[in-house]
């Protein structure tokens, strides 16, 4: 009790001290009265970001941290509930036509921060801009994902953007036409690429949109209160005109970019931050600390780390990795449990499937697509004896006894990546005598460049789901897909995927689900990739902060219904 009192006292002194030093700078504020009031009323939290916010323009943003901040400030048609299901946000309700091709959304009365009402035209404008300029996430509109009418033609064939299948029936009614039924269309709508933009404001700002509080317009729970591009810290404050303002309890969120896990832990212990993410050695350190152990919360981060094998002749000594047995030998030589428990240590899950667990559940049965991690046990497990068998077969087929490959990995993708890369090297070289796996570190940008130009042997890489369907992974390995970095090609696989997106199974959910499983089986049997682990985040959350929602897809953290206790 006395400790608490002391803490409050210290906090008060600090607030006073802070106001004292800040006072000369902004003397306009009512100095005398404010400190006591704010100390009692202001509910603010400090939250760690692991990288800079790259963009606040919902069309241009591409990373999880940017998405999180955009979603704090802007609402889409739908939002996520605690379990990740779509619930109404700006759309009060919606109807789907019989054939599943037309979605009609009815908007509620909501306002932009400048007083303008949010209208259906704001969505029409935002979507057409995204498709017309073919932004990075533009493919979310095309026939591989949302199937919005004419999106492919506009993006890839230069058709008129006005032909996009989205229109405003009136100010409050948005009509979307699709070329194929998309069962998860409502849950796509909480993805920031589908958020609205105020046309007048957006065109006035031009290039500078989203680069300062003055050039950014909210309609959501929070307003940007100080921000410059590349800011190491910035704050969002509660939007009092938000349509659901009553439900929002936290008054301000201060974001702080923290570069190292060790520093994050100390910052949390010092009370500077209320929510941080730790990894590596800091996780066991926190677990052993009795004050911290109860504050750890492990949440799914969604993305899966895997090994990509280049299967073209240009690489791996004339395409040695095109040999299926060799790839199978690799995948069976890796001790994923050890990787996760000894090196990653943040609760990440060892993964033995091409589609990671915990993000894609069947709409009919609710069953996790990859819940059963033993289903491909025969071709993907840690079994050095089996790995050796595959390896002997590969040696016989290729007619060589020793192999030397280079594995590339990003050195700016988190501390644990370097550790995992070294551990994999030891595991593979230990299990398969005659294999040398050299490690080559580079920036993530360079790694992607090498992979895109097919100039690598093996890459330690990752992919995060963009939407809650297995297709977000399986769609990658069809022939000629830009993300098929291994250049693997299988006609049966291509056909199965085609049937699922635009062909036979689009109206039959069960059949599609089974076909996806079949496709995954082909990919696993041939070891297109070697899945490693599905990343989790080990969060430390202070006792005063409750109810933050964590999701592995789209928006990782949502604060709208979180509360702060005194």
């Amino acid at each position, binding site marked *: 009790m006395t400790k608490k009192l002391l803490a409050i006292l*210290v906090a008060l002194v*600090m607030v006073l001290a*802070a106001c004292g*030093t*800040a006072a000369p*700078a902004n003397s306009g504020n009512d100095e005398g009265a404010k400190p006591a009031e704010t100390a009692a009323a202001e509910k603010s939290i400090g939250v760690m970001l692991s990288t*800079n916010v*790259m*963009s606040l*323009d919902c069309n*241009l943003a*591409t*990373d999880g941290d940017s998405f999180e901040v955009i979603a704090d400030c802007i609402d889409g048609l739908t939002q996520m509930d605690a379990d990740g299901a779509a619930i109404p946000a700006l759309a009060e309700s919606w109807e789907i036509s019989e054939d599943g091709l037309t979605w009609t959304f009815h908007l509620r009365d909501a306002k932009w921060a400048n007083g303008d009402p949010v209208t259906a035209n704001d969505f029409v404008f935002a979507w057409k801009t995204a498709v017309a300029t*073919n932004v*990075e*996430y*533009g*493919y979310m509109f095309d026939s591989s994902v949302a199937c919005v009418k004419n999106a492919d033609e506009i993006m*890839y064939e230069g058709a008129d953007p006005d032909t996009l299948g989205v229109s405003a029936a009136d100010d409050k009614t948005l009509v979307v036409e699709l070329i194929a039924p998309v069962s998860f269309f409502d849950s796509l709508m909480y993805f920031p690429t589908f958020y609205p933009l105020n046309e007048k404001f957006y065109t006035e700002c031009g*290039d*500078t*949109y*989203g*680069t300062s509080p003055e050039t950014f317009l909210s309609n959501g729970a929070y307003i940007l209160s100080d921000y*410059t*591009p*590349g*800011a*190491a*810290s910035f704050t969002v404050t509660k939007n009092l005109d938000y349509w659901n303002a009553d439900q929002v309890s936290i008054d301000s969120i201060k974001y*702080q*970019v*923290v*570069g*190292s896990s060790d*520093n994050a832990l*100390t*910052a949390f*212990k*010092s009370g*500077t931050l209320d929510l941080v993410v730790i990894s590596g050695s800091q996780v066991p350190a926190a677990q052993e600390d009795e004050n911290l152990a109860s504050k750890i919360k492990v949440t799914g981060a969604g993305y899966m780390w895997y090994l990509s094998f280049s299967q073209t002749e240009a690489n791996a000594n004339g395409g040695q990795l095109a040999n299926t047995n060799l790839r199978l030998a690799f995948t069976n030589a890796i001790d994923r449990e050890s990787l996760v428990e000894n090196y990653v240590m943040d609760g990440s899950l060892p993964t033995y499937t091409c589609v990671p667990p915990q993000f894609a559940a069947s709409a009919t049965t609710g069953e996790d697509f990859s819940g059963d991690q033993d289903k491909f046990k025969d071709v993907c497990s840690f079994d050095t004896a089996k790995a050796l068998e595959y390896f002997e077969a590969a040696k016989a087929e290729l007619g060589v006894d020793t192999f030397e490959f280079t594995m590339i990995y990003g050195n*700016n993708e988190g501390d644990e990546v370097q550790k995992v890369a070294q551990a994999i090297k030891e595991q593979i070289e230990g299990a398969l005598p005659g294999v040398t796996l050299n490690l080559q570190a580079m*920036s*993530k*940008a*360079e790694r*992607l*460049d090498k992979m*895109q130009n097919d100039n690598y042997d093996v890459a330690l890489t990752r*992919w995060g789901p*963009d939407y809650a369907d297995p297709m977000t992974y399986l769609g990658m390995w069809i022939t000629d897909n*830009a*993300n098929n970095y291994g250049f693997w090609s299988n006609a049966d696989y291509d056909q199965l995927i085609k049937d699922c997106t635009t062909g036979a199974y689009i109206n039959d959910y069960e059949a599609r689900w089974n076909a996806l499983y079949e496709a995954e089986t082909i990919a696993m049997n041939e070891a297109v990739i070697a899945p490693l682990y599905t990343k989790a985040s080990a969060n430390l959350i202070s006792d005063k902060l409750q109810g933050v929602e964590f999701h592995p897809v789209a928006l990782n953290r949502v604060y709208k219904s979180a509360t702060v206790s005194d």
Partner: protein
Amino acid sequence: MQKYIFKRVITALITLLVITFLLFWLVRIMPGNPFPSERMTDEAIAAKRAEMGLDDPILTQFVRYMKKVLKGDFGKGTSLFNGAPIHTVLNKAIANSFKIGGIAILLGTFVGLVLGIIAALNRDRFWDVFCSVFSILGVCVPSYVFLIFLQYTFAYKTTLLPYFFDSSQFLKSSIIPSLSLSLFTMSTIARFTRNEMIEVMDSDYVLLAEAKGMYGYKLITRHVLRNALIPIVTVLAPLIVDLLTGALVVEKIYGIQGIGKLMVDAISGEGIDYNYVLALGILYSSLYIGIMLVVDLLYGVLDPRIRISAKGGDQ
């Protein structure tokens, strides 16, 4: 002398132009494409390249770029903070790095000089050994380790100072980073001052001055310091550039939005941002050349012999 200064300024400007072109060219041949996105098609990348004129001949691109730069417009990033004009982002970073680096330089130089002088005057005694050990530690232990130590002591164990940089309480939150950055300068300067002083103190003309009965403060300032300072100025100049252009790890750990962090974001962030790398390169080069110019001119003030020889070279 005026003519000399004029000539030096002109050559400096020409050098800067050459470097700008060199940078422009180097950045274009760097590995990694400017839009290394996993979710973008090849066609989209090609279209974007064409739109930005990246496929034009290099000279055309350079002239186009320089025309804009001369108007103070560095354009916007190719992949970093899309849309934001580079100069606004840069201004903020420069302000932070210059202030923190500036304090570090002043502190480092002053304390370094004092330590160096004390050590030289107490040769082979306690202060000399202390100075040696201190300067070795200062050079061996990276500044970010000092930073963590200071952060741990003054922002965690005792909450005297803010844990992260906070621009609303600038002075208070610049103590930790400036102090940790200044240690390297401090030890380098201390070490150099000591050695230069000893060298000068052993020289014949100081011996002569002493023989003539000059001693103490007057001897040190008039004869020893003045001559010992010349090489120190050359050591100090690159240190100044390094400190002003930001210290990457210190900025990252203490959450400072500065130049060092921006440079790394530009080179190894989501993609190489040509325009940021260029703008920062030009900033770095101008600073460097500017400071070297000042050093060269200072030389003349500090050492009359060089002024004469510079004039000689001028004719």
